[in-house]
């Protein structure tokens, strides 16, 4: 098993000595979705519960249609008068814009991943990693990383169609015998959940190693996928432990940073807004500007902390990749 303590302290050292890599970290913090850590929470707005109507008129539907009737009629008539070609054009323009936006996001995150992975590799060889010398490798890796993301997307879709599909087919077979059907529901559900989680873990490992094979070893996406699967199988337990460590540290750091930010920024924010709330007046422009500044600072701090956590994980995974690759090659040579 690798020395996890040494990996973690080396990662901190790499981040300290290669501060330019923060740019890549911030890009991934700002544009990449998901991961084991997310700082944004879903807040329910308490005021939405205060405005429930006390009584609903019985003739509301008729009244509503009268209010909307004048303009909905005019809009509906206009809608029918417009050529269908224009609506089709609008549809394709909107879909095109959404797809373009998604592609730009893929490009920017792939570029950043490539730059960050290569940057830490340079750092591990005691070479200086800057935006200038890591960006070209990031650009070179964009296409392969995007193709790899598409491969993984289809594998995930296939998995989430295949497993429930098989479950359902077996259920159909057993459905004639009630006892078997009930047994299958329980056993099949449990087995399915374990299979899904297990697959997700393996695929996450494959993603981590394949990205590094693409960026550092210049492998083609599908070749990288196959080799990454072999590496994941050979180093399953050490990789799982590293993943758990990353998750725990990321979650812990994230929670602590939110609490600190809320205390440092939330308390002044509360004292700025509280007098206006008690006096039931609109806050003055200066208060508004101060609140906006506090919110901006909170967002910036959140992005910086998230960037640090991402960089820390990437540095850990780069070292883990080095260990796992050597282990796989040793096994193959034996």
């Amino acid at each position, binding site marked *: 098993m690798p020395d996890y303590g040494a990996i973690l302290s080396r990662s901190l050292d790499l981040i300290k000595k290669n501060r330019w890599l923060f740019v890549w970290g911030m890009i991934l913090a700002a544009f990449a979705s998901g991961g084991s850590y997310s700082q944004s929470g879903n807040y329910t707005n308490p005021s939405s519960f205060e405005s429930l109507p006390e*009584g609903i008129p019985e003739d509301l539907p008729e009244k509503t249609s009268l*209010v909307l009737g004048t303009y909905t009629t005019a809009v509906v008539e*206009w809608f029918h008068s417009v050529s269908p070609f224009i609506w089709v054009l609008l549809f394709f323009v*909107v879909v095109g814009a959404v797809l373009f936006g998604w592609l730009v996001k893929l*490009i920017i995150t792939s*570029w950043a991943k490539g730059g960050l992975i290569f940057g830490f590799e340079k750092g591990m060889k005691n070479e200086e990693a800057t935006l200038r010398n890591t960006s070209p490798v990031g650009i070179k890796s964009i296409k392969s990383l995007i193709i790899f993301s598409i491969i993984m997307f289809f594998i995930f879709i296939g998995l989430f169609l295949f497993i429930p599909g098989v479950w359902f087919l077996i259920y159909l077979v057993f459905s004639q015998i009630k006892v078997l059907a009930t047994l299958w529901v329980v056993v099949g559900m449990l087995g399915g959940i374990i299979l899904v989680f297990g697959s997700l873990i393996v695929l996450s490992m494959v993603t981590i190693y394949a990205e590094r094979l693409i960026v550092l070893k210049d492998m083609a996406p599908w070749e990288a996928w196959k080799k990454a699967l072999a590496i994941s199988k050979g180093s399953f337990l050490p990789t799982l432990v590293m993943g758990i460590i990353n998750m725990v540290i990321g979650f812990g750091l994230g929670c602590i940073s939110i609490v600190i930010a809320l205390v440092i920024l939330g308390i002044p924010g509360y004292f700025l807004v509280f007098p206006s709330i008690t006096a039931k007046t609109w806050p003055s422009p200066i208060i508004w500007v101060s609140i906006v500044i506090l919110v901006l600072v909170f967002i910036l701090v959140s992005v910086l902390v998230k960037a640090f956590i991402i960089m820390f994980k990437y540095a850990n995974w780069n070292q883990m990749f080095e260990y796992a690759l050597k282990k796989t090659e040793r096994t193959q040579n034996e």
Partner: protein
Amino acid sequence: MNKNTKLASGLLRFLSALVDIMVWLFIFLLVLLLISTSFEFNDLLDSLLLGLIVMIVLTTFGAPIINSYIISKFGGSFGKLLTGTRIVKDDDGTYLDFKMAFLRNHIGYAVSSLMLGLGFIWLFVDEKRQTWHDMMVSSLVVVRSRRAYLIGILSVLLLIILNVFVANKVYSNIMANQELYTGIFKDIKSELEMLKEDELPVPDESLELKEIGVLH
């Protein structure tokens, strides 16, 4: 790059960015002008629909493609060309290709905007006057014509005058069509008020509780 190459200053780059902003603002105001010339409700809806399609196409595809093309062909955006500056590769001084121009201007700018535009401000501390988006694609912004900044200043002034003129025209059209907009707004408002007046009264809970002797 030879030693005689003059790097563009922050002020010159800001001037070229201002020209670019004025050019795109002018296009946006033209779309608004189209919408503001509608005197009928149906015409207004037609103009809004057309304006929406034009704006989506321009902002999503038009601007990035046109901008990247002229940077790769001529060495700069409208603003850079008018201020006599060019975007060139760091190593050999040639223009960027289409792909690198796109990455620099439409992805690199987003990166430089992180941390409240720190990437843009970085040019003031970098020895090669490179912003983050310049570093990412290994580009430099150089001065090709030393007097051209005067053309840049003149362009900004002309574009400001043009934009103010078009904006004024949009405003006058809206004021001339005030009857249409206020008519629509008043009709919707009066129907909503009618709806509110016709609401059924809600029984007072405390009265009910007093009647049955629960409350005194």
